[in-house]
């Protein structure tokens, strides 16, 4: 009843081509963004920010990056953690080596270097496809793990191998409380999400999708596979690199290479698969799922144990967490292989007809 596009006539091309053609969508998104910027800081306590919201925002951003590559261009990548690491360390080096470097510029520089590394490790995609490619992207992962651990220059020769940044500020705004951090990340996320949403429906986005659906056919109709694949790698690793910089600078504050290990890559791929491949919206759903689930299990299991009178030790909780997490992933893939985004679009279809489905 409320979610219908009847009567919304487009009278110009630009109106027809806007990002959200349906007025309700537009208002919803605007309201959501406004709520995220104004409402959430008023309502939520510090723990929520630190444990859930900030990781959620940054992982969503990274997942958008992964989605560009995996979901839109169809190149399976297990090296996303490495690109995050490149972003974080490059941003760190820019920040400490150049006096008075603005924070945003160093984060974007991190993204730029991640782009370079992404293109280099994207070159095999021109020859290698599918699961072979997935394994070759692991080369990026292990190489970067090694480089940031062993090459002292990257970590400014700190003895412990862990680097830290403090004193984040832009234009006189000092970012130190969780609310500040949240708003900072949210700003990045909104900008990049809108950019990505726009990009994937542009000419280049359609080229990516053509390559994903069948690269030989795409080449036949005149899409250059090299240009399309490498640009997907570039855009994807830029976004992932910025997310990595945020993860290091804002969320962790001080970090070592283990923060961007292969588990991070798997986590990002999980987010994309569970959220829905080829959907910007799905990246948010997936990230929320992956961030909240472990915290929920962590709280829920001891409570459930005490309910039946069993005292569950911390180790057992973490093992059970693993088991339930794994089982849920499998269950989820069986029930909805196209991810939460598919549920969302089914819901939207239903809502259009509601409450008179015939």
């Amino acid at each position, binding site marked *: 009843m409320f979610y219908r596009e009847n009567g919304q006539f487009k009278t110009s091309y630009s109106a027809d081509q806007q990002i959200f053609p349906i007025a309700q969508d537009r208002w919803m998104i605007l309201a959501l963004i406004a709520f995220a910027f104004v409402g959430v800081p008023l309502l939520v306590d510090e723990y929520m920010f630190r444990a859930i919201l900030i990781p959620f925002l940054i992982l969503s951003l990274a997942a958008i990056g992964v989605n560009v590559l995996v979901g839109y261009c169809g190149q399976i990548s297990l090296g996303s953690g490495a690109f995050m690491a490149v972003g974080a360390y490059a941003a760190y080096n820019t920040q400490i080596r150049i006096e008075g470097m603005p924070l945003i510029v160093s984060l974007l520089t991190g993204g730029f270097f991640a782009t370079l590394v992404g293109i280099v490790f994207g070159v095999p995609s021109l020859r290698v*496809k599918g*699961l072979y490619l*997935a394994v*070759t992207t692991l080369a990026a992962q292990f190489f970067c*793990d090694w480089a940031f651990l062993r090459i002292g220059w990257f970590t400014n020769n700190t003895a412990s191998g862990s680097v830290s940044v403090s004193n984040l500020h832009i234009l006189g705004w000092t970012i130190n409380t969780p609310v500040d951090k949240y708003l900072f990340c949210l700003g990045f996320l909104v900008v990049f999400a809108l950019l990505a949403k726009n990009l994937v429906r542009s000419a280049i986005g359609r080229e990516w999708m053509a390559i994903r659906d069948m690269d030989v056919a795409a080449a036949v109709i005149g899409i250059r596979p090299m240009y399309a694949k490498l640009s997907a790698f570039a855009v994807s690793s830029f976004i992932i690199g910025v997310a990595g910089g945020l993860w290091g600078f804002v969320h962790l504050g001080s970090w070592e290479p283990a923060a961007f290990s*292969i588990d991070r890559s798997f986590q990002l791929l999980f987010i994309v698969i569970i959220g829905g491949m080829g959907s910007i919206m799905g990246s948010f759903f997936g990230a929320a799922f992956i961030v909240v689930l472990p915290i929920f299990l962590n709280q829920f299991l001891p409570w459930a144990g005490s309910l039946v009178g069993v005292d569950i030790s911390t180790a057992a909780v973490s*093992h059970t967490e693993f088991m339930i997490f794994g089982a849920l*992933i499998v269950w989820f893939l069986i029930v909805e292989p196209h991810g939460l985004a598919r549920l969302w679009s089914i819901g939207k279809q239903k809502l259009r007809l509601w409450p008179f489905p015939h």
Partner: protein
Amino acid sequence: MAFFIETLLGGLMAGMLYSLVALGFVLIFKASGVFNFAQGAMVLFAALAMARFSAWVPELLGLESKFLGNLIAFVLAGAVMFVLAWLIERLVLRHLVNQEGVTLLMATLGITYFLDGLGQTIFGSNIYQIDVGMPKDPVFLFENVFQGGVLVSLEDVYAACVAALLVAALSLFFQKTSTGRALRAVADDHQAAQSIGIKLSRIWVIVWFVAGITALVAGVIWGSKLGVQFSLTTVALRALPVIILGGLTSVPGAIIGGLIIGVGEKLSEVYLGPFVGGGIEIWFAYMLALVFLLFRPQGLFGEKIIDRV
């Protein structure tokens, strides 16, 4: 020269073990098109089962002989792997038929998490020893050829022999038995195999079971060398370059690829490592495989990929 040969031999031995893990990958990929990330978790799970059973069984039955205890433990662990294979087919694979490769890959990652948790819940998370009575003494070979001879750990030699035996047994199984022929038929063409009455679900159970057994053997060997601990799961990550180097669908490829990677890793670590700060084993194998794939995208022995519109 002696040092070079030592390194080479060490690489070959390590490569043999990589081949074992890689073999599990290849078997499953050929028969069901699943890229089984859980192979590493299966290695750990099998090794944990073996380690605990070999401690529990003699205690329960009051056995004196260590050999008998180990044998029973091995059989029991094999049974556990069979149940696991059956459950995976029943609960996971059956429902994911015809899904995309990446979805299946994610499902096996889910299985990985589950197995990691399950293994440690049932068997505990301490570091266990497996003692199958392999001699640990080093021996010197070719003492009359080189000065000082070549130092070889007997344990490695035994391990390599066991691995070679297993590979031989597997290839016999594939070539000579009717089940083996059915497996090869399924690997060649699912539909054709089904149409002549081969049950896919049964084949999958068998294949996962066989992969489980190779995981068990690999787990026992690695476990008796390094102790059974969580880091065993990383063995799978070490074996991944092996399969893409050898070709995802080729059993001989897994073996030869394993040997190449094993040797390459050791030689690079010894001769290249000191110049760049060491620890390059882990990514060198991947780089080797990557560069190789640029020239031959299907791996050494993989089937040629032909794309048609």
